[in-house]
């Protein structure tokens, strides 16, 4: 089966001074339907890896392929197109728009698809139901709990039916009970077919996922499948 995402000898160096080598010769392939954790202490290069995998940043050396497309050959505009259609992001700080209700926030994930407002809303409602927020459709972010906000953010990442979803420390701002629920949500979304990569430094969270990639000093030091 072809990979959704394939990294081959990826190296990322931030130009200095001082020059910082964030990733060294990373090889990684993610198949459709996988749920994996990328784990490592802070400073290990997790966020850089996320940016590279999510086509938010370019690599210094090596190849990144998303759905068999080498992103080095794509223009900035084409990369934007790729992000709008094939990639979903979940951020630690949620990054929801305060003035909009949950449905509109999720629908915002489809704005750059050129989709009609009506269709965006219909899909947003479906996505919110999928993450268990069917009864919070018209609540604004400040009327929602941290866990609910993160669910809205997850719905926004999923609403465009992307090939892969990246979550950057999705439970970093949540208490353990809520973290547990979010982890459970990831597992069940994955069971429905979503391909997900969760970046975290929490062992407990990582341990719940079928595959764990360990990162240290910019190198992959472990890749275990349970």
């Amino acid at each position: 089966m072809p990979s959704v995402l394939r990294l081959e000898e990826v190296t990322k160096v931030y130009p200095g001074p001082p020059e910082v080598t964030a990733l060294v010769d990373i090889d990684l392939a993610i198949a459709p339907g996988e749920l994996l954790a990328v784990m490592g202490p802070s400073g290990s290069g997790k966020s850089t890896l996320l940016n590279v995998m999510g086509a938010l940043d370019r690599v210094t050396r090596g190849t990144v392929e998303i759905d068999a497309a080498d992103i080095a050959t794509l223009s900035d505009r084409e990369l934007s197109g790729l992000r709008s259609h094939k990639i979903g992001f979940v951020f630690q700080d949620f990054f929801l728009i305060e003035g909009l209700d949950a449905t509109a926030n999720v629908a915002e994930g489809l704005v750059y698809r050129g989709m009609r407002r009506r269709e965006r809303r219909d899909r947003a409602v479906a996505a919110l139901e999928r993450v268990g927020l069917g009864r919070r459709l018209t609540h604004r972010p400040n009327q929602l709990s941290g866990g609910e906000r993160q669910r809205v953010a997850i719905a926004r990442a999923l609403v465009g039916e992307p090939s892969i979803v990246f979550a950057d420390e999705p439970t970093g701002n949540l208490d353990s009970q809520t973290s547990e629920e979010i982890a459970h949500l990831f597992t069940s979304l994955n069971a429905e077919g979503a391909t997900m990569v969760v970046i975290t430094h929490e062992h407990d969270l990582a341990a719940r996922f079928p595959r764990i990639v360990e990162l240290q000093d910019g190198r992959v030091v472990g890749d275990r499948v349970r």
Partner: protein
Amino acid sequence: MRSRLRLGDLFGLGLRGLAARPARALLTAIGIAIGIAAIVSVIGISASGRADLIATLDRLGTNLLRVTPGGGVLGTGSEVPEEARVMAERIGPVQSATQTTQVEASVRRNDLIGELETGGIAVLAARPDLLDELGGGVRTGRFLDNATSRVPAVVLGSVSARRLGITDLDPRPRVFLDGTWFTVIGILDPLELHPDIERSALIGYPVADVLFATTESPSTLYVRASPDFLNDVAEVIPATVNPQSPDAVDVTRPSDALQARRAADEALTNLLIGLGAVALLVAGVAIANIMVMSVLERRTEIGVRRALGATRRHIRVQFLFESVLLSGIGGVAGTLLGAAITVAYAANRDLTLAVPPQGVAFSIGAALVVGALAGLYPAWRAARIPPAEAVRK
């Protein structure tokens, strides 16, 4: 597989961007509104004023020459021939001519008032066609005609009437002219171009001749000529009306005063429009400033939008549109304010209201252009923010 942003969504993004910080948007738009209001009201007020001025000029005509052949106010110049008017009429392009002659008499309310208290009112002998030639009218009563020119009848200029305390002709008021009672048969409307007539008492030549030995030698000639040859007429007229001393002849064009006022108005208008433009420019700089600040504050939003699939162009257009929207709102508000000022001013001054639509279109266009220019740099900066950096914790 391309990113697309619908026009309607762009509109929504812009509005939402401004609505997120309403006080800031309002304050910034006020700057634009003030500039635009200044320009629109200046254009409106001057257009209204000019409309009145042009109407006045059209009514009075600009082809009337005022000729004073006697040389000087004291009338000490050489004797002007009595045929001066007839000679002037013989000049080709001259359409008509009339005249007045200073009468050696004073006018008083009655015989009990001292001879020296004339109130600055001159007594002039006038031909019956004078009023029509000057484009004037009577407020009440009537002007001199061939019959009333022969009897002790007088028509008062508007200022003279006020000074003599005569406001209407009922009961038949009389005034005292050096030993003879004259009946007031008419009071004139104001004659804006002829203050000397406004300040005079007019009687007929025949009665002036009989009572005060006034000759037909004119102290002022009024010559109406074909507009195309007006300058030529002005050039030959001195030698025609006073061959002995043409240098003593003074030829003026009363409408020049109005024209000068119009030119001065225009200069002032241009100056004020310039000030409005400066205000607009300052407002534009303020918008640019606010937008740059907004871009800095909204790095995360920009990053999230890029992550959601926005292209650089989408980000650029979003901020540019916000800037244009801001100035557009200011422009519309300013136009309404300027129009309101114009309406109030015109109503207050009794002017014909004229808000030129081109002026309004121009100022709204100017506001939009200012907004677009002000937004260029901030939008460019916003689009250049790398998405990975913008979403960094």
